């Protein structure tokens, strides 16, 4: 079942088209990665799902119904731009957020206690945000977005500014929620986290969808076109005809092959040039590579199309 569905959604601001004919589906109980460079239209898309904006064209469905204020209690939203009331106690703020979603105060304060305990913030319940570190505030904001036990959670850069321990804690909470059948839409620039957590992804650029599907399928689509080569010696053997992109790291090289190039040819030339090869591996590209490739590629295509006009 699809919990969130966008059908040919378009959103304009004056002349500017923020989202153009965008469609994607989010299956229940999955983690969905909504990806894209800055200004691609992610936030606008998310704001349409949480009913802050209405689309100019197309449909936004949540739990198979057009989004409306009635559906807001079923959605939890942690925006990228987020904050807390400076002069209000943490506990009171969280109860306020729960109240806004229709949770009674007594039920809310019980849940607040549970969540604060789980995220190791119990001692801070009666403190004001100014007494908390940025990371702690972040965790409070996270609680605020899920305190009403929503079916769909939209988390925009949930880990930014958190230390590794807190990131791990939050990740386990998110995966736990997924286990309970909740659906999570995850927007971030951290591709490693997407690779770790997401089932499906949708990559958008300039308001349009450029890539979508299950993470596994997307990566398979790109095939094993990347060579990891650990060698000693000169890299002069790598001809321009073989290599699309060559990234040298401290102990190895990541070589993205040109279309149709044979990986074995790389190995043959390396040996011919007298380099000592310690490791040779043919792998799928990282999501990071796919992201950069797709975004710059679509930009180039857009420029070509622009020039052709």
């Amino acid at each position, binding site marked *: 079942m699809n919990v969130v569905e966008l059908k040919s959604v378009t959103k304009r601001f004056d002349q500017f088209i923020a989202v153009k004919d965008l469609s994607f589906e989010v299956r229940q109980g999955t983690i969905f990665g909504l990806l894209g460079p800055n200004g691609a239209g992610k936030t606008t898309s998310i704001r349409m799902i949480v009913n802050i904006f209405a689309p100019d064209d197309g449909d936004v469905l949540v739990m198979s119904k057009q989004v409306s*204020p009635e559906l807001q209690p079923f959605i939890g939203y942690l925006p990228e*731009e987020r904050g807390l009331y400076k002069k209000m106690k943490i506990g009171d703020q969280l109860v*306020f957020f729960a109240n806004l*979603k229709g949770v009674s105060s007594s039920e809310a304060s019980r849940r607040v206690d549970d969540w604060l305990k789980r995220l190791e913030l119990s001692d801070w319940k009666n403190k004001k945000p100014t007494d908390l570190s940025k990371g702690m505030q972040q965790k409070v*904001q996270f609680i605020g977005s899920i305190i009403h036990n929503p079916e769909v959670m939209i988390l925009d850069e949930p880990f930014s500014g958190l230390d590794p321990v807190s990131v791990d804690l939050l990740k386990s909470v998110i995966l736990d929620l997924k286990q309970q059948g909740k659906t999570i839409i995850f927007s971030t620039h951290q591709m490693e986290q997407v690779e770790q957590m997401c089932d499906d992804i949708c990559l958008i650029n300039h308001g349009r969808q450029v890539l979508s599907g299950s993470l596994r399928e997307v990566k398979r689509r790109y095939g094993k076109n990347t060579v990891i080569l650990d060698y000693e010696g000169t890299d002069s053997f790598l001809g321009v005809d073989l290599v699309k992109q060559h990234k040298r790291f401290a102990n190895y090289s990541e070589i993205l092959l040109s279309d149709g190039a044979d990986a074995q040819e790389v190995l043959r030339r390396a040996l011919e040039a007298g380099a000592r090869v310690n490791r040779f591996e043919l792998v799928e590209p990282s999501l990071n590579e796919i992201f950069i490739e797709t975004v710059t590629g679509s930009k180039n295509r857009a420029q070509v199309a622009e020039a052709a006009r």
Partner: protein
Amino acid sequence: MKKVWVIIKREYLVRVRTRAFAIGTVISPLLLLGLIILPGFLAQRGGGGERYVTVLDQSGDPDLFAGLKSRVESKNDSNSDEEFNSSTRFVLTRQVVTAEQDPRELIQSQSSGSGNKGPDKAFLVLGPKILDDVPPEYHAKNLSDFSIRALEGAVSATIAERKLMRAGFDASKIGQYMKPIDLKQFKIGAGGESTEGGMRQDFMVAFALLFFLYMSVLFYGIFVMRGVIEEKQSRIVEVVISSVKPTQMMLGKVIGIGLVGLTQIGIWALSAGLLSMFGAKLFASQGGRVPSIPLNLLVYFVLYFVLGFFLYATLYAMVGSTVSSEEDAQQAQFPVTLLLVVPMMIFGLVMSNPSSTSSIVLSMVPFFAPTLMMLRIAVINPPAWQVLLSMAIMLATILGFVWLSAKIYRVGILMYGKRPNLAELGRWLRYN
């Protein structure tokens, strides 16, 4: 509606619980009360000091000086409050000067050099033809002193008295003839009945109400604006509007803060009512006078506060939503605050002529109505239709501005950076 209530509750409780609220509620009426009572109190204590006046007498009439001296001294003692500042005690000394001498030279020689008695030294010149309509002269370093009016009155009365005696009137009766007459003042009330009152008392009450209304609307209006900016700056808006409509958020804020204002005003009105009932005697015995505020004025005050606050608060909320920082807000809020300040600059016009066409028209303008109509109600009793019409116009304006502000607000709260110009604001109205 339940969500609006949640917001109202937050806005209200967060503010009423602060120390600033408690202090503001107690301090401001005390300040105003001080302003009302203090002048009378000071006059009672005769805090004005003594003024030494050398009378350069060329009249050759010792009785003139004697009459003047006794009149001034009786004035010093009588403690009448006809003059605003009669608290200065005049001490007169006579210096006989011949008609040939130039009094100005004498003044110059006495004011400069070692014989200088200080800044308070003043001279009164009574010329040789003082009884033939040559006016007396007053020379002093300080002329910006209201108490000179008291001296002027005494000199004028004494000269008139001497003239009457010269014309052959019975000296013993002159005092009786010349007794000043007080205009007894009565105010015609709503039911046509007259009650004794005075311009001073009406002025005090009207001004206090006007001032408090202005301050309250301004203060709480700015409160709303700052609340909106705080929510923008702390980036909390997006969290909130994923749960409620921006319009609900705005209304909740305006109503919540309005209730804080009403709470404060309620406390003030109650204290004013109690003061009028029980406090007047207490203060009267202390020499101060506490004007009593009729109950219906307090009711009107609350009504016009609610209307005025709603009108200005929606405007301030709109302004707050379009800016990203307090600094930007300083500029952006200027036109709104100006609308509120204008009536404070022209209220004298309305007060002195509350029934004129211009006063009626001004008090109908929705932005001025809360202050100017309130003023007219305090000074005269305007016909009921005028009061109701002003309220109706305000209500219609408020509804219009709530609609407009809501449209701007829902876009503005998500916009950061450059302040939008009017054309951009116009385009915002068309967003879905």
